């Protein structure tokens, strides 16, 4: 990996030693989450079909995990453990290592607009994949929040008597069901965009497998210069 690649003119070159963009614990958590999310979504679709929320709309058998409702439920209540445990470790990791602060903040509205415009013009080339653009940051924060919301609404649906206070806060049992469905839709929407863009910029996919380029401890200087590079 060429040291010069990650620097704009006048900026000191990246030190060769340093953490990778995606350290191995993060990569493991990412792929565990990917599998578990697919289990939760497709088994959830099987559960949904047992009493559809949108009348007239159901998921065909092809898309459902579990032969029928009983098994969709079993998959769902098995997957939830992996989702929550992996998710808690990930959140802890993100906060304790400072990764969330470093990678996902700050978000400036003007940058979001500019990045969306660039993407629509297919200016999606990602010279420095160690720095997330504004849309990436926003989407990652949204999907993390959506995941947390799914756990909360899921608990409300699972235990509407034991957690009756939570159910009231959410607006009732049927409303909690609807919110759980909406949260799924947000996550699926994210997935479609996330997978499409990863395939369009394959080095990002490879980075999540092998770790990606090495970064220095502070990437703020690079962040600033990378944004300058993106503005074109």
């Amino acid at each position: 990996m060429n040291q010069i690649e990650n620097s704009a003119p006048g900026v000191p070159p990246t030190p060769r030693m340093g953490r990778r963009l995606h350290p191995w614990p993060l990569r493991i958590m990412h792929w565990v989450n990917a599998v578990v999310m697919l289990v939760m979504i497709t088994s959830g679709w099987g559960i949904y079909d047992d009493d559809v929320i949108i009348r007239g709309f159901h998921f065909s058998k092809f898309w459902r995990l579990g032969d029928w409702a009983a098994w969709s439920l079993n998959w769902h209540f098995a997957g939830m453990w992996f989702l929550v445990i992996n998710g808690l470790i990930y959140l802890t990791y993100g906060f304790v290592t400072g990764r969330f602060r470093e990678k996902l903040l700050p978000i400036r509205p003007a940058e979001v607009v500019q990045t969306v415009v660039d993407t629509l013009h297919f200016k999606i080339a990602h010279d420095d994949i160690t720095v997330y653009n504004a849309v990436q940051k926003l989407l990652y924060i949204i999907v993390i929040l959506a995941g947390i919301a799914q756990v909360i609404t899921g608990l409300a649906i699972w235990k509407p008597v034991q957690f009756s206070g939570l159910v009231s806060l959410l607006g009732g049992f049927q409303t909690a069901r609807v919110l759980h469905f909406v949260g799924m839709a947000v996550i699926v929407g994210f997935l479609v965009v996330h997978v499409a863009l990863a395939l369009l910029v394959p080095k990002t996919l490879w980075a999540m497998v092998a770790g990606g380029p090495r970064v220095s401890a502070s990437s703020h200087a690079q962040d600033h210069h990378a944004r300058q590079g993106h503005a074109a």
Partner: protein
Amino acid sequence: MKRTAPIRMLLASCFLASAVSSVRAQSTTPGGMPPPPGMSLAQSTAMRFAQPVRVGDLIGREVLRPVESQDVLGRVGRLVRDRDGQIMVVVDFGGFLGFGTRPIAVPVDAMVLLGQDMEIVAFTPEQLRQFPTFSPSGTTDVANDTIIKVGLAKPSH
């Protein structure tokens, strides 16, 4: 003998798991089946353990198709008695999200109660589309506080 008993228990557990996996059908009879050919609508209602319901509680209910996707066929507009004294449910039928519906009169014995909704079990959506648009002449409204009997069905899957 003592050695094989625990093994048999474990075998039973595995066989149980595989037996469970092979079960496909949820019920012997799906919900909302139409009356068999030759059976009158009144007879089919009687077989469906018709229960008393207040007419006013039916107004505005969604009318569903007895299938897994629970397609909305329309909404209950009002109930009337026709010239022969038969109770008909005037359903605001078809359209999209409540727009472009037209009223059709469906015999109450062709319908069932399903929780907070109703279903039409005796006619397919294609048949319902052929129903003439409801005309009130010759009919009398059924008062909201009237109690009538309507058949039941289990949810459809």
